[in-house]
């Protein structure tokens, strides 16, 4: 027994000295002192030797165990220290995961949605292929309005519906205004509708498909100051604290009064540059909801008022980033050399 213990100690020490890694040292420890470890097994044999020899062997076993444990612990430190000299070129590039890219339209939609949701707007979605009624008639646009020409709106080759008119590719997100009034039943309404829109323009600065945001607020006592407040909030949140907005008189059939909203140019700080019109950039069209539109949505214009606004997603992104994409058609040509830049 004594011999066996000494042999185990010697052999283990020889083996230990050769070990170079923490893992191997731990393995050796288990091999000795684990449940089925050699040392553990040997110790179990203690029962078999005469009672009188047991204390001596016991003391020896303890001494050997203590010694082995000490040496193992020392070896672990040595191994750890040895690793310090392992050289690694930390300047070589890492191996990154493959990262994709979201289209700038998606990026802008998420960001704008978040900003409006914080002031109680809910995002909605309405048909992209729509009846003339929702796209025009309900928005106070009479049959002869120029926007209803073939030159301004895409029509679908289908027979018209007696009540709803022809089928069109929705030329603006405003088509969702009366649909939202119908959905809500009665005010208050705070909606933001973001969708694809279509118009027959296709050149360096127009694509036949584009994206718009539509905001619609209807409640008792809504007035122009609320519209201004909302834009100021949005402009500062989205574009930055130092930006200012202004309203200019404009004309839309479905709002009265109507405005165009401008924002100070972020690049020249309002001094005037190639990206803006003498310090201002057009942000969007807006106005107070026309009473005929409220009536079309079965809302009493004597009890409720509202405001609406709509603007282009693509433009908003470029205005924020200061991008001058020389050909807007690039956005939908899906060249990955373009898409991977965003």
């Amino acid at each position, binding site marked *: 027994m004594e011999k066996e213990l000494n042999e185990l100690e010697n052999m283990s020490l020889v083996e230990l000295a050769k070990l170079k890694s923490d893992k191997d040292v731990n393995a050796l420890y288990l091999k000795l002192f684990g449940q089925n470890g050699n040392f553990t097994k040997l110790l179990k044999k203690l029962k078999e030797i005469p009672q009188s020899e047991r204390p001596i062997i016991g003391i020896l076993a303890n001494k050997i165990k203590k010694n082995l444990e000490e040496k193992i612990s020392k070896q672990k430190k040595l191994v750890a220290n040895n690793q310090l000299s392992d050289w690694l070129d930390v300047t070589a590039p890492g191996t990154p*995961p*493959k*990262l*994709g*890219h*979201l*289209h700038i339209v*998606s990026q802008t939609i998420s960001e704008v*949605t978040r900003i409006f949701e914080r*002031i*109680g707007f*809910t*995002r*909605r979605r309405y048909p*992209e*292929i*729509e009846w003339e009624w929702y796209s025009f008639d309900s928005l106070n646009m009479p049959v*002869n309005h120029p926007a209803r*020409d073939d*030159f301004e709106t*895409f029509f*679908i080759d*289908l027979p018209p*519906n007696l009540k709803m008119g022809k*089928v069109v*590719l929705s030329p603006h997100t405003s088509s969702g205004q009366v649909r939202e009034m119908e959905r*809500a039943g009665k005010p*208050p309404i705070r909606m933001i509708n973001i969708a*694809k829109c279509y118009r027959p323009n*296709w050149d360096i600065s127009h*694509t*036949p*498909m584009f994206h718009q945001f539509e905001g619609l607020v209807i*409640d008792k*006592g809504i*007035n*122009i*100051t*609320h519209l*201004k407040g*909302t*834009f100021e909030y949005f402009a500062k949140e989205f574009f930055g604290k130092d930006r200012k907005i*202004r309203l*200019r*008189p*404009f*004309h839309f059939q479905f709002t*009265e*009064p109507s*405005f165009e909203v401008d924002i100070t140019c972020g690049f020249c700080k309002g001094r005037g540059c190639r990206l803006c019109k*003498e310090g201002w950039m057009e942000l969007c069209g807006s106005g*107070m909801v*026309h*009473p005929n539109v409220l009536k079309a949505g079965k809302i009493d214009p004597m009890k409720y008022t509202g405001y609406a606004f709509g603007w282009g997603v693509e433009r908003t992104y470029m205005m924020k980033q200061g991008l001058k994409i020389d050909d807007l058609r690039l956005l*939908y040509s*899906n*060249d*990955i*050399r373009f*898409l991977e830049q965003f």
Partner: protein
Amino acid sequence: MNILVTDSWLREYLETDATPQQLKDCLSLCGPSVERINKVNNDYIYEIEITSNRADCASVYGIAREAVAILPRFGIKAALKQLKGGRMESFRVKESNHLPMEVSDPEIICNRIMGVVMEVDFMKPSPAYIKDRIEKSGIRSLNNLVDITNYVMLELGHPSHVFDYDRIKTHKFLIRFAKKNEPIETLDNKKYLLNSEDVIIDDGTGRVIDLPGIMGTENSVVNKNTRRIFFFIESNNPVLIRKTSMRYGIRTMAATINEKHPDSELVKTALLRGIELYQELAGGKVAGELIDIYPRKSKPTTIKTTIEFINDRLGIVLKKSEIVSILESLSFHISEQNTSLEITPPTFRQFDVTIPEDIAEEVARIYGYHNLPSKLMSGEIPVTNRPKILDIEEKIKQILKYWGHTEVYNYSFISGELIAKANLKTSAHLKVANPLTSDIEYMRISLIPSMLDTVARNQFYSDNLQLFELANVYLPKKNDLPDEVPILALSNQNNFYKIKGFVELLLKEVGIAGVKENIPSNQNDFAGTWSHFWHPKQTVSLVKSGKIIAYIGKIHPAISQNFQIKNALYLAVLNVEILVDLSNPAKSYIPIPLYPAVIEDLTIQYPPKTYIGPLISEIYKINKIVKKVEMVDHYHNSTTLRITYQDEKKNLKSEDVKNVRDKILQTLTSKYKITFKQ
């Protein structure tokens, strides 16, 4: 439309100390937007945007009139000067000396028609100041006779036209609708075949001598021999003007003003101003009766409203006196009743101002939007749930981006050519009635054709195009709007299992478990994605609750070839609407196991073309201590499965595991003709 107004001309009617910059800033805030000022020599040219409701501003005089209402609000003095033009009476000539001229409009197409025959000197260049002004306004100077018509239009805002009296031998003007395919040659020598909705002037013999309100014709225009003219102004139907002008692409300034419905009262003002200029600049003498046919008189609506209504729209409290003074500065007539106001706009605003909201707009803009405070709404926030699909879509996009996919946005349109390449039928698509080009003639019923096209166009920039698109497809319905179904398509060029792995984990992330796999075998199994897109032996569909969630597969080699895609391409197409229906993002909690698991690997061999999916499902069913079956290795007809056994209630003994393992082996051998490698 944008107009160009020179500062010097403007100041002929506008007396003010305002600098050009001040004019620009003030007008833009309260009236028409001045987009730019260009300094040319010693003058300034304002570029001004005129909205379609403000034809009254589309002239030098119109801008002066607006400025007079606006500038004083900024503390700048401004006054309007007397309009030029002679008095009607002074132009009357003795009836015995009248040159004959007969104008008729039997269908009452025009609102008002005025005209006068004049004798003139031979045509010559206009004086420098006329030439300079009209050219700075963007119109080419031709000769004094024609320039006068343009000068009047620019100054006052109503188009006019001059004819050679002697070239209209009948001395008759008949205003009528054109016949179908009736030919016309406009004065720029372009020929058109007309439509029955176009209005023309006929000389009584059937000869077309004008396209009124849009452009004159070659056969009646003044020339170097002209000694007598017919100066003519008519107030047209704006809708007909717009349609004809757009139909033939004749976008003259006259047409763009006439389609905005200028005031018919202005016809007379413009005629008198024109006569005066012909006298001054062309030796003109009135030689006939002043014709004035005026079947539709200008008649502004009187609007009843209250101070309270106006203030409610503005969100501030203005005194009655201030509101009245603003409206009066715009030439509105106000009569005060007890608590209400009766307001009549001037004739030149009659089409634009018709309801109380229009009055609120006038007050608000002249008071100044910049003077109104900005507030956020204080009312109650509507309680409406955000549509679930929005969250799922956003999640899917984020996940795919971080898994290395690039998002594409294709047009919702598709060409007949692409439809053919994808072996679809054009008749299954909604057709655009007025596409700009054949590229955008149909509305997509599948995202696959455009995805294939995108892959084909980008294949030389990457070996593995991991692209995705999430968009609606438009499925036609009888007598109704189409179904707009949101679809996700993603591509991969690595191998089938890569793309399947993305889809499986994506489903897990949006909270869809217990999906069954189905090997589609007939057309019906492909509802909505058409079997011919897919490789018949390398496509699977994922089904839950009887709904097809997704197809994953290799693109059919013949279709790939049609698109000239060089490498193998795998696509997955998911119906996002169904994902939303089935998604259950709620997580359930299972206590962390107290007892250790036993994990062992099992290598099986099987006959060729054995589906391993059902086999794995079978193993799960054998005993509830089988917690996980993973495929760790796969080679030819041999697969290594890693099986995790675990019991929540006790430590597994080796015989517990052995019993289950034996059962697995037994089932697999009998059902799947499997052999085992030990």
